[in-house]
């Protein structure tokens, strides 16, 4: 078991009312599982992902990530945990605009204090996502699909145990989205990483092992789809 959420609540206080975004969420994910979190916009998917990845703290409830209780960790401990064991892919790519593609991919490795071999490994990954020739380009010189491929390379560069992707194809056209999807699943298969994908794209969701449906902050269904795990 790599991820476990127990009685998670998340509420936002606005000026005069309280908004319950996540309402008693319970689930766990086994090592190597590929899980899709789906649901209509505003149902709390991104919020849940942020909590599971240790980017945010729940209002109440307990979270276990890679065997460590992140609810009790402080910001720096969580940062360290993310660096060692977690990878990210964002809807809007989130590359550092002032760093080249290669440097962006190297960052997680360098953060681990492993600068040696970082460049070779990063180049390797860029090669793997088909951007070997673009390693010295800045994000502003890349297309959306290319940026997302760089961010894929970055997500895998620190060999994470678990990878979170928030609408990884949300900002891409169908064709480009498909290329990114395939790369994601291929790399994941190679590295045997646990994968949590937030999406409202049912085609993408159907390529995973298990679909958790959220609605109004609650899990309304959680079912495995063993049959179609591969294409």
């Amino acid at each position, binding site marked *: 078991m790599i991820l476990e959420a127990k009685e998670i609540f998340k509420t936002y206080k606005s000026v005069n009312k309280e908004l319950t975004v996540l309402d008693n969420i319970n689930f766990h994910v086994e090592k190597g599982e590929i899980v899709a979190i789906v649901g209509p916009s505003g149902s709390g998917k991104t919020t849940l*992902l942020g909590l599971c990845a240790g980017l945010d703290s729940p209002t109440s409830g307990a979270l276990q990530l890679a065997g460590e209780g992140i609810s009790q960790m402080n910001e720096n401990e969580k940062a360290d945990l993310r660096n060692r064991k977690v990878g990210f892919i964002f809807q809007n790519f989130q590359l550092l605009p002032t760093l080249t593609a290669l440097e962006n991919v190297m960052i997680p490795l360098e953060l681990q204090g492993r600068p040696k071999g970082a460049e070779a490994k990063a180049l390797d990954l860029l090669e793997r996502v088909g951007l070997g020739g673009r390693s010295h380009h800045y994000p*502003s010189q890349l297309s959306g699909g290319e940026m997302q491929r760089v961010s894929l390379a970055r997500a895998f560069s620190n060999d994470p145990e678990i990878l979170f992707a928030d609408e990884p194809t949300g900002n891409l056209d169908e064709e480009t989205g498909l290329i990114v999807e395939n790369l994601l699943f291929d790399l994941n298969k190679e590295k045997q990483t646990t994968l949590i994908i937030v999406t409202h794209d049912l085609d993408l969701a159907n390529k995973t092992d298990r679909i958790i449906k959220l609605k109004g902050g609650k899990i309304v269904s959680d079912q495995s789809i063993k049959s179609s795990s591969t294409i």
Partner: protein
Amino acid sequence: MNWSLIIKTAFRDSRKDRSKLVLFMSSIILGVAALVAINSFNDNLVRDIELQSKSLLGADMTVGGNRPIPDSLLMSLDSLNAEQSTEIELFSMSFLPSIEQSQFVRIKALTGDFPYYGNLLTEPASASNTYKSGVYALVDDGMMLQYGLEVGDSIKLGELMFPIHGRLLTSFGSVGAGTSFAPPIYIAGKHIPATDLIQPGSLVNYTNYYKVDNGTNLDEWKRARRERFRNSAIRVTTVEDQRENLERAFSNLNDFLNIVALISLLLACISVASSVLIYVKTKVQSIAILRCLGMKSEEAFMVYFLQIFALGILSVILGVALGSIIQVVLPIVLKGFLPYEVTMSVSLPAMIKGFVMGILSTTLFALGPLLSVRNISPLKTLRISDDPVKTDPLRWLVYGMIVLSIAGFLYSLTKSVSDAVVSTIGILVAFLVLFMVAKFVTWATRKYFPKKASFVLRQGLSNLYRPNNQTQTLIVSIGLGSGILTLLFILQGLILANVEDMGAGNQPNMIVFGIENDQDAEMQSITKSFDMPIIQNVPVVTMELAGWQGKTKKEWLRDTTRTASRRTINREARVSYRAEMDEDDELIAGTYTGVHDGGDSILISLDQRYMDGLDLELGDELVWNVQGTLIKSYVGSIRKINFRKLTSRFFILFPTGVLEAAPQFRILVTKSPSKQVTADFRNAVVKAMPNASVIDLGSILSTLNDIITKVSYVIKFMAGFSILIGLIVLISSLFLSKFQRIRESVLLRTLGAVEKKIYRINAVEYAALGILSALTGIILALVGSYLLAKFVFELEFNISWWPILGIFIFIVALTVAIGLWNSRDVVKRSPLEILRNV
């Protein structure tokens, strides 16, 4: 901490977008350059004026009295290691053989290289250098004109005949009350024995002139020996003392330059802060990503702190260099426009000050927003939110340090804790007011939003409170900028009016001395026939102090506990009487009695210094000896004489109805428009009344006037220069604001707003910001300049409103213009390109 990564990331992050970086750096460079240039000008101009004011005295210090200076004192003076000249001043009759006339003159017999500052102006000019080489005399130009003497004629002083070697156009000495009115004659000191003029009982003053090295503080030296000088009846005058006449001008100048220095610091701060704050803002997203990928908050902080610190040092060095270049080059460029030549040299203290303050302000201003870097949530990667970043309690520490540094800077300027504290509080209040206005604006536009207004107006106004608004930064910087401009403008106007009032243009330059009472009407008509004003026309009675506070003068002189100096006691008193106090004098205590009521008590009015000299108090009794008759009087009022006016100033004033019958003469003070009129007037007066002497103060006044001209020029120049720099800083911080606006404008563009609409929306926003902040800034400046005028400069606060309205309109127009320029930049670029860069 992973230092190699921190340094690597800091460096890598700085490579992209160098042009943006240059823009941010340029703001810091500009701020520091302003600080250095302004302070460097300050140093140079002040030094120049100091030098000029020394030429009033001709030396750094004079030591003298009516007896030769005692050897013990001379030895102590030797320890100063100074250059030295001696002067023996004699009052004596001279004889002019060519016209068989006698004239009472003031002979100055000199040895050494005096004057050390300024020149003894003579005609021919070489005469001032050569008169000591032989038996020569330099004779007062006025006296030569009066008697029709020419160079080459002779003058007999005592037993020795001197050929006249040159006309004396200037002379050195005090413009003060003690000036003797006898025309001066310069000869070499070595001829004094041959003239046989020094006899027991003759009126002789001995003066030594000293020039010391730059580092020597003569005022301290003097203060330490005050007792000794008093006991030996020796008078020591330093340049500082000599400046008394110009005291107001100098203290005004000094205060003004301090304000300018402070303003240069504030400008530097606005400049640095506006660039650093926005720079950090553009980095928020990158920081969130780094945090998300697992960078520790301290490391993220360090990356950007290092980066800004390195850029800061680089910019500060460039700024110091630029400031020094401006300071050296500008006078060369402006050469034709300068009223006098200033030797400009790079001022090391100004450079050091600029460097230290530059680094300090860059670091402190970077620290504020960077501290919040530590709190930038990695969540920002998931959700673009413009939530204000959580504030860090450590921020208060940074704010405290900023305030402390400002107070420290102010203390280094004013050398007074209370001044520094009060001014710091003043600045804080100004900031607070601007800050609150900004808060009020965001609150009020949201609350009273004109929902039915046009799209453009609504969009423009909502920009004022939307997330990521620039209301606060811009209101503070525009407000501060316009406040500074207005303050400088008002203050320089007030001070200039006051300083120029002291200049020779408005000062009398001629005194007719020794007019008999029955010649008064004739004297007045002569003056009027020359179209010259009668500035003062008063009777003078000479008398001696016979005793005071119940003791006679003899008893006092024997008294070892007295504090009054022998000199003060023995001085011949030149007294006037009048029914009303001179309006330039200031009544400090008591009431001025203008007319004596015939009773027993004659109530006189004394100057404060005279009171202090004799240790007198209101109501004390003084007995005067008026040519043999003793008159008992009481101190009825104390005045402070206005020494700025060069009219005849009387320490002692009697009421009318007492001295009318005493032997007396009159003094008439007037102003001649030119040298020629002075000569003609002098001839007319001497022909009509041979007993009168006409004293031309022109030569002394011209030095004074020179200084006043320079002081006004320096004030004008520094005000103009600082206003210019202020404008540039204001403009550059407005330009920087575009980085904050790009995303909003692009979004509107993407949503299909046409160019015109974007321009208009931005015009509404910038106009609202410009109007509110300029108004606030100007009001703050009015309050500030009123307080400064009242408590620092002690000037009347009257201003003209039109130029201030002009400043207001100008600032609003400038703000809108730059706002539009900024949006032009957005409109011209494709939305796609900007979206990628953001």
